[in-house]
């Protein structure tokens, strides 16, 4: 198994080096080399995961003295499969997509180095290796995003990405240094053993080590996973090649979720960090989704959609559903990668045929034409509210009878219920031939999705965290006072129900809207469409800083 871990890292690195050194003589064959390399790496990742699953043991390889440790454990093998799978698809797609681009060989070399860096990151078994890999991912991404060196725009946003990533990189460095200082080792497994045995033993920055490190790791995860205030680079990096966007949205931005899972033994010892993850994730999910809805550029909308999804992933970590976050990032990676790779064809199709075919869903959602005859209100309301909760409760009960004891599970249940209810609520007025058939299909799909997510996430839970006591500890760490929890649930429910009522009211009185309300709505829309002016503020701040720097230089005569 140890050899597999080494192969996993060496293969893409070797492909990248050969591509770089012999780019001239290889010509277009550099793509073939890269694809074959990716196929073998993927096969190795599959084999490694099977070995970990079957043998139920982890592999550890150490290259340096006290550092250079790489792991083949459940988390790394799972992540390696995702990374190698997506990078293989991206490479195959790029063979033809990038054929007319200058620097064809360079592109594949960078993809190879990116894969190697990502694999090193997920297999890192010590802090130095992790810090190195974490940095390198940011650096290689900068060059991939700015691949078209003639495009000043692509380059500018690549710089934004680098600068934002740097914030997270440095937070990770400080976290690593504190852990080393406290325990005198870089090895993650040794650190986790110490932390588990003697929590709260060390104090740094006026707080327990676990709390300080947890906050720093959270910041690193926020920067990498585009959480609010550190997200502006994500929707703007669309000038890079589409395969890079696919790789970035499907694999790289997910690193925040991975990092939190990797440091789970530290997060379970924190008091407030999990709550911070929850709040930040929730706010990011909402803002990302709102911004997504106002974009008319498909790729930018996908960018904000990723932001929302990343928010949701971080929120899942915040409620203690660590393994669910891993399942989420894998599922999101696969569907978002597909969307990005398909975005070009959709845009091309829309440019050639701008007429939209008549379709029930389009008529209802975009043209906002609802059915002339509504179904009985009370029956539909009953179905809307009751069916999702029944399906969710049964699915959760199937895997854990005591799920009502876990606040995290309740929160996810709540969100699942809202989503299901929202779906049914939105469709009951749709103009379709057979509304009951539609409702039946929705309920069937919903049940399938919920059963799938509950069962798969439960399987992930057992695979990633086989110790039931540790699983319970994670949920306990996310626990908040029952009074505040209940208050939060009631408040959120009230806001959502108020939103539904408001939507219903405004739908009914669409033409009779009052002028000042319309103005308010337009102002809000303008603010959302300008992305809450966050990019403008950052750009203004940057310009101001550069101006100050220039003035200082003049004042001090460049000395």
């Amino acid at each position: 198994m140890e050899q597999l871990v080494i192969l996993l890292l060496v293969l893409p690195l070797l492909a990248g080096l050969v591509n770089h050194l012999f780019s001239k003589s290889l010509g277009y064959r550099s793509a073939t080399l890269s694809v074959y390399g990716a196929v073998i790496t993927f096969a190795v990742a599959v084999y490694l995961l099977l070995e970990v699953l079957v043998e139920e043991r982890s592999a550890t390889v150490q290259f340096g003295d006290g550092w250079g440790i790489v792991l083949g454990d459940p988390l790394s093998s799972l992540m390696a499969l995702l990374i190698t799978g997506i990078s293989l698809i991206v490479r195959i797609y790029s063979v033809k997509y990038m054929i007319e681009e200058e620097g064809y060989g360079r592109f594949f070399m960078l993809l190879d180095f990116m894969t190697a860096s990502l694999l090193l990151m997920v297999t890192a078994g010590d802090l130095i290796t992790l810090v190195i890999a974490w940095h390198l991912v940011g650096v290689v991404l900068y060059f991939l995003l700015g691949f078209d060196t003639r495009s000043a725009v692509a380059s500018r946003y690549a710089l934004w990405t680098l600068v934002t990533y740097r914030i997270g990189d440095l937070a990770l460095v400080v976290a690593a240094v504190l852990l080393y200082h406290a325990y005198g080792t870089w090895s993650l497994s040794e650190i986790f053993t110490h932390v588990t045995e003697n929590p709260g033993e060390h104090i740094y920055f006026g707080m327990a080590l676990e709390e300080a490190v947890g906050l720093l790791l959270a910041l690193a995860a926020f920067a990498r996973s585009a959480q609010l205030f550190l997200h502006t680079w994500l929707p703007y990096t669309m000038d890079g090649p589409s395969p890079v966007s696919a790789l970035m949205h499907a694999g790289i931005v997910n690193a925040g979720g991975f990092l939190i899972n990797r440091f789970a033994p530290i997060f379970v010892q924190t008091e407030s960090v999990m709550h911070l993850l929850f709040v930040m994730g929730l706010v990011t999910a909402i803002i990302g989704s709102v911004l997504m809805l106002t974009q008319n550029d498909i790729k930018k909308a996908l960018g904000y959609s990723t932001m929302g999804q990343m928010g949701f992933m971080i929120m899942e970590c915040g409620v203690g559903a660590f393994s669910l976050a891993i399942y989420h990032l894998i599922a999101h990676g696969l569907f978002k990668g597909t969307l990005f790779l398909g975005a070009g064809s959709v845009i091309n199709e829309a440019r050639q045929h701008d007429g939209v075919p008549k379709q029930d869903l389009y008529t209802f959602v975009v043209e906002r034409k609802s059915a002339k005859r509504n179904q009985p209100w009370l029956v539909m309301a009953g179905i809307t509210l009751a069916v999702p909760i029944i399906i969710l409760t049964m699915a959760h009960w199937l895997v854990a009878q005591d799920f009502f004891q876990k606040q995290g599970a309740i929160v996810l249940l709540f969100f699942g219920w809202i989503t299901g209810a929202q779906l049914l609520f939105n469709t009951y007025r749709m103009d379709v031939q057979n509304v009951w058939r539609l409702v039946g299909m929705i309920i069937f799909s919903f049940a399938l999705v919920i059963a799938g997510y509950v069962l798969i996430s439960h399987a992930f839970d057992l695979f990633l965290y086989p110790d039931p006591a540790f699983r319970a500890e994670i949920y306990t760490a996310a626990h908040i006072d029952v009074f505040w929890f209940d208050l939060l649930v009631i408040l959120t429910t009230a806001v959502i129900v108020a939103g539904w009522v408001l939507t219903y009211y405004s739908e009914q009185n669409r033409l009779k809207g009052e002028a000042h309300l319309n103005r308010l709505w337009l102002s809000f829309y303008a603010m959302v469409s300008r992305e809450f002016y966050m990019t403008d503020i950052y750009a203004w701040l940057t310009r101001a800083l550069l101006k100050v720097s220039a003035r200082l230089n003049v004042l001090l005569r460049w000395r």
Partner: protein
Amino acid sequence: MSGILLLLAGLFLPLFPLSMVFNGLFGRMQNRTLRIALLLIWPQIGVALVVASGMDVPGWMLVWALLTAIFYGFRALVLREVSLWVSFIATSVWAVMWLVMDSQGAGWYELAKYALGFSLPLILLLLLSGELEQRFGAAYTGLYNGLAQPLPRLSWLIVMVVLAVIATPLFPAFSAVMAAMLNVAPDSFMMALMLSIAWFMWGWAGARLIQGLLIGKETGAIATQADISSGKAWIYAVVLVVMVLSGIYMIGGLA
């Protein structure tokens, strides 16, 4: 006497405003060989002085060093002349040497190695700026850009050397900054933050330098220039590989 030596070291491991001496001197020297010698020797004198003083570096000097590192890193953001950029970044990274020297038991050899780790990539960048001057009359960002397509070998070298300067992992400067972080972060959040800001500034300034030189549409005059010879490029590449290997060796020293 020891105190005077320490203060004198502030001239060679530049602390603002003493740093203006180095920058003034570097600016006046037009001879590249002398500049290289200055980059090589200047911080080593500082290291020798601190070691000779035998004193522990006081806390206020560490703060002073960090402020200097941030100050010059910040000022380097808008610099367009490559040699001036080298001079400012040298001032900024050498100031961080004060934090490395705070380490318990770090001997002269250890410190000299870290100082060399900071100086070497700066020397390479200065040499590469000579290549630019040879072709375009000046090494200046924004004056001409878009070098990446017509001069790929030179561009690749500039990128790698800038990455080495800004303490990207695996290069020796990374180990030096990590050593500095190990010394200050556990004791003071503010110092950890300040060092992080300085490191952040180097990255930002480095990326701006790369963009100013390599990105954009090349003009006709640039397209006609010859790239650096493959022989020369190989020499630079070998030096870079040696730097990476020594960087890996130095990371081992942290463990």
